[in-house]
């Protein structure tokens, strides 16, 4: 395995693919939050890219920075947040220093967001129709009638019956599953090139969860939208996403295709995650494996591998230097597989 | 079993203690609230030691020196009877505090009794208490107090005169006391519903809490439940009530004496001093300005403190 410099992943991409097909490129993003006594370093040097029409899964435990990373792309952060470095390219254009007006345009037209809790993400005082239509009315200068018509079409698309009546209703008149469908319709209405779904099914019943997953898969096929799906549940992404990014303590620790992650995981954390998924055919009475130790302290910027304290494979170097990203040999030679680890787990196990 | 309970109780005690310590820290961090507290302590101090530090007695009239503007001899000047205004203002502080404290105490007592009766016994008693609270709260308070004072005072004075004639006891000559009692009584009558509501609300909400149900299931006697759970939880709202009520009572009292109802001259109350001052303000503004400014400062101080207390005891997440 040839070690390479941190930023190298991208340059490799540039050599192999062509820039035009890349929808999103993120380079070395860093975000922190001001707390009463110091800073919380939520994102510590994240780089990745997304092709057009691709579906990317972002997985990691609570607090690993997966949401903050994506929200930093469109600068949808609370006032205490500060993006300290990094570049974001959307459709080849640098939006890291975009004006507020430009950012509003991007949020309204190019990027759609689906949030986690449908019960609180809709304004209880405003009718569904208006909440759906207001975005395109403002950004695409549609008339009220046109916008509402468009909203109705998308409500049908997400599987809500009686769409015209629904437009006139308030959020509390809909169930949780339906509200999430409304959120999905809202995200898609402006026909964005990128949809970021932040744990869209976490707050829903398992049965509804399955429906929503199916819905999003269907939509992706129909509209060819690029989707970033954030979740803490690795098993959810199976059969759905093209690639997976595993995050820990504000950094990407592994990135590969779905198949690679499942069949050839290289980072100890990923391995731990996979092991802890309950299996239907596991033997009776055995304990469910879990990853020992506690979540990292985000008040300090990591200078060594943040996962080291919990890692079964660690060596001395892990506690001294932050691992740099390196390429890993893949099973099929055509796709990239990157990991941030000093240890070659295959040799160890 | 008992050991475990003790342990959990003490850690909850610790938590309670820390809660108030937290609140205290927050309170003193609020600069405005601290300013308010200092001002109020000053006034409180003056109220208590007032008569001993006044340069003149508030009754002393010096007809040769009427309506004098502020000077070295009379820091706030004199009024139309030659009385030293500073002394009267200081004595007014006394009036204000006596009324505020008594009314608050009285209304709190009534409120606690009725509120807890309703909350504990429940059922018809509770319904009655709630109805009583509602009726009292919908009575126009200002009017009620005024009417009570106007209608009952002559009666009370009469009654006291008769008592004096009958028993020759000096106590009944003290019409000033009659004044005060009427003022306390009527003010307490309009304030107790708020206290009762708070107490009742607290008891009801604590009653429903899971830890109380758990304690009951474990067989903890009611008296213990009250001591360990109900009382500590009620202290916060009671403190807020007390601080608000002291300020309110003070304002009410001065409003009533302003209208000529309540504490009568020659007993100085800031309210009646302002009312007097209104007659001659164009010529002698200091007669009006002195008590008015003092009352303004005190009420502003209360405002700061009350807001600070509220924030300290009920912190918001977005602060």
């Amino acid at each position, binding site marked *: 395995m040839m070690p390479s410099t941190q930023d190298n992943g991208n340059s490799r991409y540039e050599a192999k693919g062509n820039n035009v097909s890349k929808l999103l490129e993120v380079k070395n993003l860093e975000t922190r939050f001001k707390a009463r006594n110091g800073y919380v370093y939520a994102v510590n040097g994240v780089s990745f890219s997304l092709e057009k029409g691709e579906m990317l899964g972002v997985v990691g435990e609570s607090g690993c920075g997966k949401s903050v990373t994506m929200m930093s792309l469109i600068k*949808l952060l609370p006032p205490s947040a500060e993006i300290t470095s990094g570049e974001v390219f959307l459709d080849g254009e640098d939006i890291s220093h975009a004006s507020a007006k430009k950012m509003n345009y991007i949020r309204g037209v190019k990027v759609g967001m689906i949030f986690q809790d449908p019960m609180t*993400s809709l*304004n*209880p005082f405003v009718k569904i129709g208006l909440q759906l239509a207001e975005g395109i009315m403002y950004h695409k200068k549609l008339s009220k009638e046109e916008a509402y018509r468009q909203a109705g079409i998308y409500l049908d698309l997400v599987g809500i019956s009686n769409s015209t009546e629904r437009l006139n209703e308030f959020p509390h008149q809909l169930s949780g599953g339906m509200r999430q469908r409304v959120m999905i319709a809202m995200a898609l209405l*402006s026909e964005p090139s990128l949809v970021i779904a932040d744990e869209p099914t976490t707050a829903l019943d398992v049965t509804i969860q399955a429906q929503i997953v199916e819905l999003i898969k269907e939509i992706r096929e129909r509209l060819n939208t690029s989707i970033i799906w954030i979740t803490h549940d690795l098993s959810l992404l199976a059969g759905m996403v093209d690639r997976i990014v595993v995050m820990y303590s504000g950094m990407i620790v592994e990135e590969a295709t779905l198949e690679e992650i499942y069949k050839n995981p290289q980072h100890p954390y990923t391995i731990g995650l996979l092991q802890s998924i309950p299996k239907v055919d596991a033997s009776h009475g055995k304990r469910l494996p879990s990853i020992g130790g506690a979540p990292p302290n985000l008040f300090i910027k990591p200078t060594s591998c943040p996962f080291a304290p919990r890692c079964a494979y660690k060596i001395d170097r892990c506690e001294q230097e932050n691992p740099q990203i390196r390429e890993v040999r893949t099973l099929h030679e055509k796709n990239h597989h990157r990991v941030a680890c000093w240890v070659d787990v295959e040799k160890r196990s | 079993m008992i050991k475990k309970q003790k342990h959990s109780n003490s850690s909850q005690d610790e938590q309670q203690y820390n809660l108030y310590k937290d609140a205290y820290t927050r309170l003193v961090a609020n600069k405005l609230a601290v300013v308010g507290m200092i001002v109020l302590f000053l006034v409180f101090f003056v109220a208590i030691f007032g008569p001993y530090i006044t340069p003149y007695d508030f009754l002393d009239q010096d007809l040769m020196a009427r309506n004098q503007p502020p000077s070295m001899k009379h820091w706030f000047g004199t009024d139309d009877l030659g009385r030293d205004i500073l002394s009267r203002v200081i004595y007014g502080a006394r009036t204000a505090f006596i009324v505020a404290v008594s009314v608050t105490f009285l209304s709190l007592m009534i409120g606690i009794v009725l509120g807890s009766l309703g909350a504990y016994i429940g059922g018809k008693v509770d319904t009655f208490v709630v109805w009583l609270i509602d009726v009292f709260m919908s009575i126009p308070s200002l009017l009620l107090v005024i*009417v009570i004072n106007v209608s009952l005072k002559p009666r009370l004075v009469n009654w006291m005169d008769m008592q004096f004639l009958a028993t020759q006891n000096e106590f009944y000559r003290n019409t000033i006391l009659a004044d005060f009692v009427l003022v306390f009584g009527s003010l307490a009558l309009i304030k107790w519903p708020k206290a009762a509501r708070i107490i009742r609300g607290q008891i009801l909400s604590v009653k429903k809490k899971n830890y109380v149900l758990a304690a009951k299931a474990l067989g903890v006697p009611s008296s213990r439940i009250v001591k360990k759970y109900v009382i500590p939880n009620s202290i916060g709202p009671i403190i807020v009530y007390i601080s608000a009520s002291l300020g309110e009572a003070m304002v009410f009292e001065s409003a009533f004496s302003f209208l000529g109802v309540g504490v009568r001259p020659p007993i100085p109350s800031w309210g009646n001093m302002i009312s007097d001052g209104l007659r001659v303000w164009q010529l002698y503004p200091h007669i009006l300005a002195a008590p008015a400014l003092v009352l303004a400062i005190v009420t*502003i101080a209360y405002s700061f403190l009350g807001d600070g207390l509220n924030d300290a005891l009920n912190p918001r997440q977005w602060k």
Partner: protein
Amino acid sequence: MGRYILHRLLRWFPTVVLILLTIYALVFFGAGDPIKLIFLRAPGDVAYDVERVEAIREEAGLNEPFLVQFGNYMWNIMHGNFGNSLVSGRSVNSMLAAAVPVTFQIGLTAIFLLTIFGTLLGVIAALNHNRWLDNLIVGFALITWGVPVFVAGPLVVVVLVLGLGMDVPYGWYGLFNPMVITPLVILSLAPMSLIIRQARAGVLEVLSEDYIRTARSKGLPRRTVVLRHILRPVLTPVVSQVGLLIIATLNNSILIERVFGLPGLGRLTETAIKDSDYPVILAIVFIFSTVVMVSNLLVDISYPLLDPRAAAKKEGDE
């Protein structure tokens, strides 16, 4: 909704009767004999003739037992007759007709203006949370909250007239005369403080809600987010305060009308109290209680109008 209003009115009626009864009783059993008082107040050296007093009392029906008198009184009220002033002999109705419009005009205008300005200031403060503008507005609100109207009023008048040389703001010249500005402002200060703080707290709460994040994620301009997504939720708590304010303003009018020479309900109350003119007092109690009830009712009705979730619950009830 209609049934709800009717229900409330029915509940209000016995409460008002009870209040009137209490006040009537207090005055009846407490106050001095009003006829005697009239005599004692008459100018000059009018002889206190016991027989004459008795005759007048008989005529005025003042010798009947208490409940009969009260019954008569209630009967008259239901016919819209509040009786005659014991002092001037004028019909109470005419006195009210002259006084009530003044107070209501000033009071309602004050409430209207202070609600709008108060909400505006509260929203501005919240949107500038923890910066100097926020602190300024909150400080201003706290200062104006504590000071009672009968303190602020005279102090301001002293400053304006003696300090700035303006004319004395005294007398009623109609709602559109500049003289009305000073009392209007004084009357508005304390209530506005409450609205400012309520609106500010409301906005700060809403700002941390998820649906605001959703609105921002659609790239909506700030103006739209504030007007459409923030203001609506905040209206409910603000309006609930306005109900309280109506009563407070009415009370304050009693204290302040003397200072500014306004011949309104407050002034009437003051003089009636001083003269023990109890038909007037009772009529005023009636008006106050009615105002209390009406404003409570209005506030209650406003909830389902402003909050769609409350509207759903209401429908569930009916």
